[in-house]
Structures are given as structure tokens and as C-alpha cells.
């Protein structure tokens, strides 16, 4: 495991520092990195309200089909990414079940950056839900009861008592979904259309460079992606700790 990683860390420098810089600041690379990180962050942000709603309903209410719904939440993790990729494409293509509904609205999802976003929302959702659920179950009922007895409305209790207590785990779920989204490949490449500069994600660019036998260039991009996500996760982790301490 260490030797392969060493290769990833050492190979880029065959180009020399200037060569690495040049290969990473290529406009096509920058566009791909921007798309991968931007779409992953946006998808993770969209998954926050989605995940909050689903986790809330799953932990607070009993309803028929709840067990089935619970198993369904892990579907994006269990479904092979290539399968998810082609089925999302079929759904959102102009003739697909959802795509056909969006055509009159003038919204194109498949083969656009919007498609990337849809795929990343799909794969990221379980991370947010599964992070929130245990924390929601552990929320002390007393705090909510106290707020209610003191005359808070349900909405006030939610915004002033529940959400702040969930903030650290919301951030954790966001980070997990983001990390997964940045590197995601299989579920994205089918629906994205993969137009250079527009809807081409960074992992795909790594594959393209490898196919051109540009090993050093591929390794440089891979290493850059790793370092960027590492720094991002480190920052989010810090933020999460600070939030948690603030609450305690």
C-alpha cells in the first residue's frame, strides 16, 4: 500500500517543479478541478436539507414502509456506480421519465454540468443521513421540552435548539459527502457529457492523461486532487471541532 502511494507522490516530479506547475495550471485542468470541487460542494450543500428531512422523519416518526425506506437510504452505496450512472442518464435524458418533464421548463440536466450535480447529490445523500441519524436519536428530549414549556413555538425550538445541536454533525456529513463527490467517477461520466472545459470532471482527466501515456501528468493531477481534498477536510474538521466545543 505504501509503494503505490510513493509512486503517486514521486512520479509527478519527473516533469520538474515548473513542469508540474504548468501541467496543473492548464486551463482544461483548472476547469475540471473547479467543476469537481464546485459540484461536489454544491451537491453536499443540497444534501444538507435533504438529509436533515429524511433523518428527521426516519428517527422521529413510525410509518408503514419505514424499514424499507431505511434500507433504501443505502442504495447509492450498494448500487455499482456504473449502474447508477446509466440509470440517472436514462432518467434525466430529454426523453427520460424526469428529463421529459424538465424539457418544457427549458432545463437540460443530462450532458451538462447540472447532470454532474444530480449524480453527486445521489451518491452523497447516504453520508449526510447516516451521520445525522445517531446524533438525532441522542438529542436530549429535555432541551426541546424545556423550550416548549417556556413558550417556544415548534419552529423556534427547531431553529434555536435542535439545529444548533446538530450543526457539528451537519458539517461532518457535508465533509463526507464532499470527499466522496470530489473523487466520484462512475456515476458521473455517463450523465456529464464530458465536454472539455464544460462538463469534464478531474478524475476523467486523469484517465484521459493515462490513455495518452502521460503518467507524470496523471500523477500530478491525482496528487493535486488528494492534497486539495486533504486540506479542505482538515479545515472542515477544525470547524467541526470548534462548533462542538462551542456547544459544550
Amino acid at each position, binding site marked *: 500500500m505504501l509503494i503505490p502511494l510513493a509512486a503517486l507522490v514521486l512520479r509527478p516530479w519527473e516533469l520538474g517543479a515548473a513542469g508540474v506547475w504548468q501541467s496543473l495550471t492548464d486551463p482544461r485542468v483548472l476547469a475540471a478541478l473547479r467543476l469537481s470541487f464546485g459540484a461536489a460542494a454544491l451537491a453536499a450543500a443540497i444534501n444538507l436539507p435533504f438529509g436533515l428531512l429524511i433523518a428527521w422523519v426516519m428517527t422521529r416518526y413510525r*410509518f408503514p414502509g419505514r424499514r424499507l425506506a431505511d434500507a433504501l437510504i443505502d442504495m447509492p452505496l450498494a448500487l455499482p456506480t456504473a*449502474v447508477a450512472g446509466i440509470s440517472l442518464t436514462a432518467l434525466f435524458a430529454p426523453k427520460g421519465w424526469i428529463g421529459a418533464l424538465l424539457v418544457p421548463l427549458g432545463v437540460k440536466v443530462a450532458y451538462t454540468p447540472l447532470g454532474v450535480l444530480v449524480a453527486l447529490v445521489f451518491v452523497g445523500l447516504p453520508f449526510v443521513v447516516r451521520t445525522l441519524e445517531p446524533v438525532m436519536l441522542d438529542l436530549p428530549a429535555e432541551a426541546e421540552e424545556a423550550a*416548549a414549556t417556556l413558550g417556544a413555538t*415548534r419552529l423556534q425550538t427547531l431553529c434555536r435548539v435542535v439545529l444548533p445541536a446538530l450543526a457539528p454533525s451537519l458539517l461532518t456529513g457535508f465533509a463526507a459527502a464532499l470527499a466522496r463527490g470530489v473523487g466520484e467517477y462512475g456515476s458521473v461520466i455517463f450523465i456529464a457529457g464530458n465536454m472539455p472545459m464544460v462538463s469534464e470532471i478531474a478524475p476523467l482527466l486523469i484517465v484521459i492523461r*493515462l490513455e495518452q501515456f502521460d503518467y507524470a501528468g496523471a500523477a500530478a493531477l491525482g496528487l493535486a486532487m*488528494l492534497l486539495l481534498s486533504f486540506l479542505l477536510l482538515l479545515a472542515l474538521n477544525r470547524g467541526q471541532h470548534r462548533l462542538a466545543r462551542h456547544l459544550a
Partner: protein
Amino acid sequence: MTSVPMPSALTPPRLQRAVLILLAVTLMGVLLLLPLVVVFSEALSQGFETVVEALETEDARAAIELTLLVAAITVPLNTVCGMAAAWCLARFQFPGRTLLATLVELPFSVSPVISGLVWVLLFGANGWFGPWLDAHGVRIIFALPGLVLATTFVTFPFVARALIPLMRAQGPAEEEAALTLGANAAQVFWHVTLPNIRWALMYGVLLCNARAMGEFGAVAVVSGHIRGQTLTMPLYVEALFNDYDWVGAFTVAALLSLLALVTLGLRVLLERHMDHGRGAA
């Protein structure tokens, strides 16, 4: 608690409850269920016979066999290595322990494409060992060994991850008791360690197998996409899709979806078992 009447704000109105449940179920239906339904509906769109035909082609056969072969090598390998890693991490303190723990988790936090890339950097035509391998007529990349390496790398964390929290919670007491009573290491393993971890182990193996058969990104990089030779089922789905063989692609995809459904079902059963064991302990 019961003597005090519950404040009305704590028992949300029925309407609000119903609306929230409806919203969540709709969201899950559109986002999670619909993609699954589409796979089967597209596969069966031309009738059942085309499904059988699509699965009986030589390339489909080869893809299914290759997928099973890769999983048959990878899963046992990762079961043994995962158990060893979990045992080391749960039982011992040693220098580099944190490093090992990070390495175990690493494949989960790395893009699958990077998990494939590292092997090409080592063994590909321009890789560190590429020329040497070429001179000796050994093929790793664009061949079975590459697929196995990439899949092993990606699926390594599952078993260890399932075992570590359990082994740590159980502690070494029972193993030590068996040792003091004169059991040898093999006896301790078969009669004490293994029965204690069996459900969690099955859980890890299940997830490991599902990912091994469904992995796409990592194997896409090392496969070389040679039809009938280096295409696993997920890669074959891609090849068919790119050839506009819509029904064929969704047929193979449906087969993979069935695997995912079985995995999810078994997982629910195992989780119930594990909760049960924890409750009894």
C-alpha cells in the same frame, strides 16, 4: 413525566407530521428508488427474451466469469488481511499504529480512479517496473493481475472496518483465558476469536464482495477494455452503453442491481443479528 400533561408544542400536529413524512418519502422515491426502477424497466423494455439473449452472448459470459473470478480472489485475500489488520489495531499498541489505522481507511477517502492510477504508475508500460515486466513477458496492467490489485486496494477497508470496533469492545480477556487454559494459538482462533466475531466478519465480507463485483473507477483505469478478456460486468455495462446497446447495457446493469438488492437485504438481516448479540452480551 406522565403526571404532567405534555405541552402541545411537543406533539406536532398530525398534518405537519403527515406532510413531513410525505415529503421525505417522495424525495427518497425520486432520488433513490426511481434510478433502481428505471434499470429494470429499461432492461425489460423489449421483452424478456432480449434479456436472455443479451446475457447469453459470449462477451457477457466472459464478463460475468471474470467478475466472479476477480471477486473469488479478492474477497478471501481481503478477509484474511482485514482480519489481521483489525487484530493488530484492536489488540496492540505499537509505533506506527495510527499510520496503519489511516492506511486501512485510506482507500475509502481516495478517488477510485486514483486507486487504479497508482498501479499503472508502478506496472504500466511507462511505470517503474513496466519495462522489467515487459522484458520478462509478465502482464499486470490490462490483464487479470491488475484488475485483482485494483479491486483489492479499493475493497481492503470493509472487513477491517467491520471488525475493529467489535474486537476493541470485546477485549482480549476470553482469548487470554483460553491461552492460560492451555489452548494453542490455532485453537484460540477457531474456538474463541472466530465465533465471537462471526456476524461482524460476515457483514464485512458481504460489503467487500458487493464492492468487488461492482467496482468501476479503479478497474476502468487498469483494464484496457479488451472485450471478452478484461471487461468485468460494470465495465461491460459501459462498453455496451457506449455502443448504444441500450437494452444490453441495462440488462447487465439489472443483474448488478439484483446483487445490490440481495446485499442490502442480507445486510439488514445481519445488522439485526449483530444488534441482537450486542443486546445479549
